[in-house]
């Protein structure tokens, strides 16, 4: 039976000697889906991307791209890549590199489309050793999409880009997704991950600790937060004791992090220090990230169940 996944990993394991860089990771991405790889340093994100690209051979398990072995998929021009630490040849111009890249693929995107999508029209004639970090990342993005690949692998794609370039980058990636390109990207930026991924694959120490939509992850695991201010300030320790939950002091007041919203709210209202300016928030992805990566893989599998 033909797989419904553009990218499919099953029990994927890779060991460097005895140490497992990736241990039994299973997941799949459908066409046009954007999946973010999230995890602390050493979680196995880059190893996973290298396995998906055929640059490493799995110790155990399988990985397929459109049903093909990654090496075959690369040879067939199905894959587009932005690696984390590739230095483009400094003695080549941007236009030369793009023409070269297009010549490698059977059905490349027209040059004008690549240039427009990556926003590099003003640097086409420049040598790559004369570009800024952000410009180089844009050129690498242009090269990744030049062959019109079905699946894009992006390792820390916005590293080195300024804010405006980042926003532009995600906007352009959204357009490609709408045309059916599947995207797997690794990132350390939780805000970008939250905003631009359809699903998040969270790794910790080589294990899959979560694979779900960002909203679902936050809902399942994050604790709600109650923001409030006090007419007469209290210390965080004193407040934590009175409210019987974790309290954080921020510049705009206090934040109570609690699984029992009603009960905690009642306690806050009952405080003689007169609480005001209430706001109830869901937890952020940062909290989910810290919580899950600290918890580890096995325990989370039990909690999430449905991955």
């Amino acid at each position, binding site marked *: 039976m033909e797989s419904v996944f553009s990218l499919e990993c099953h029990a994927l394991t890779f060991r460097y000697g005895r140490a497992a860089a990736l241990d039994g990771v299973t997941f799949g991405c459908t066409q046009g889906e954007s999946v973010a790889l999230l995890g602390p340093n050493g979680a196995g994100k880059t190893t996973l991307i*290298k396995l998906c*690209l*055929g*640059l*490493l*051979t799995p110790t155990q398990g399988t990985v397929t791209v459109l049903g093909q072995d990654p090496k075959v998929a*690369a*040879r*067939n*021009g199905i*894959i587009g*890549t932005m*690696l984390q*630490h*590739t*230095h*483009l*040849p400094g*003695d*080549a111009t941007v236009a*030369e*590199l793009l*023409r*070269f*890249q297009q*010549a*490698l*693929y059977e059905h490349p995107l027209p040059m004008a489309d690549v240039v427009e999508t990556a926003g590099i029209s003003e640097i086409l004639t420049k040598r790559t050793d004369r570009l800024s970090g952000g410009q180089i990342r844009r050129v690498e993005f242009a090269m990744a999409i030049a*062959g019109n690949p079905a699946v894009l*692998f992006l390792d820390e794609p916005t590293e080195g880009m300024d804010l405006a370039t980042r926003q532009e980058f995600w906007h352009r990636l959204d357009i490609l997704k709408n045309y059916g390109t599947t995207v797997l990207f690794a990132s350390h930026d939780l805000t970008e991950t939250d905003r631009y991924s359809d699903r998040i694959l969270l790794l910790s120490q080589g294990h899959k600790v979560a694979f779900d939509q960002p909203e679902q992850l936050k809902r399942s695991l994050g604790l709600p937060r109650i923001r409030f201010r006090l007419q007469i300030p209290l210390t965080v320790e004193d407040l934590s004791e009175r409210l019987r939950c974790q309290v954080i002091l921020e510049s705009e007041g206090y934040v109570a992090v609690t699984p029992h919203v009603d009960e905690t709210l009642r306690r806050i209202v009952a405080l003689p220090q007169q609480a005001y300016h209430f706001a109830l928030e869901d937890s952020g992805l940062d909290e989910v990230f810290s919580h899950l990566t600290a918890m580890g893989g096995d325990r989370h599998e039990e909690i999430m169940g449905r991955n």
Partner: protein
Amino acid sequence: MKKLWAAISLDLRRTLRNRQFIFFTLIMPVGFYILYSRMYSSSAQFQGTSWDAYFMVSMAAFGATGVLLNTTGTRVARERMTGWPLYLATTPLTATRYVIAKILVAQVTALASIVIVFVTGMLFNHVQIAWDSWGILVMEVWLGAIPFAAWGLVLAYLMGQSAINYGVTIVYLAGSFLAGLWTPLKFLPSALQHFGKLLPAYQEAAMAWGSLAHRVFDWAHPLTLLGYTIVFGGIARWLFVHQQRLGND
């Protein structure tokens, strides 16, 4: 073929844009040739031919050797450090095509290097040889340099970016000197003469020196060079496959 041509085309443009490379591999041999040939009388005879013609072949072999070692050695090692071949492995350009493109570009550049030295010999030192003999000399020096493409790859896969310059310089300069490209072997101590005759740079130049002196073609030279190509090529291939398994290229 389209992919290979794209790789060759990009690499050739990059090579010709590299001023340092052009100076050391295309211009320096010509400079040395002009300088050294002026140190002796133009009518001086050596090994059955004129010194100008003899040393022209020496410097053509020196230049070709340098081009091949630098292109397949230094440049491939540097690119490996930058991750460029790793990136290319994710494209339809196979690693084998990448290496073939590098060797072909090196051979084309080496041909240019040889022709430049020969044209200098013809124009500056008025070296006179029959037209068909020029063609034979070019082919002998050019094809005789092939082992250095394989040798360069061995160095590239064995050494890191910091060590490759030393490796290539030792093989290039020391190898050329010991092979008699700078000072004819007969002026070196007898032990060095024996050792020098084993080196590929000597075998390469000796083919052309023999043609200059109208000696009977000695098949030992091309066969020795073929042996070097097979040995170095085999080692380079083993290292290349080993690196691929480790995911380094």
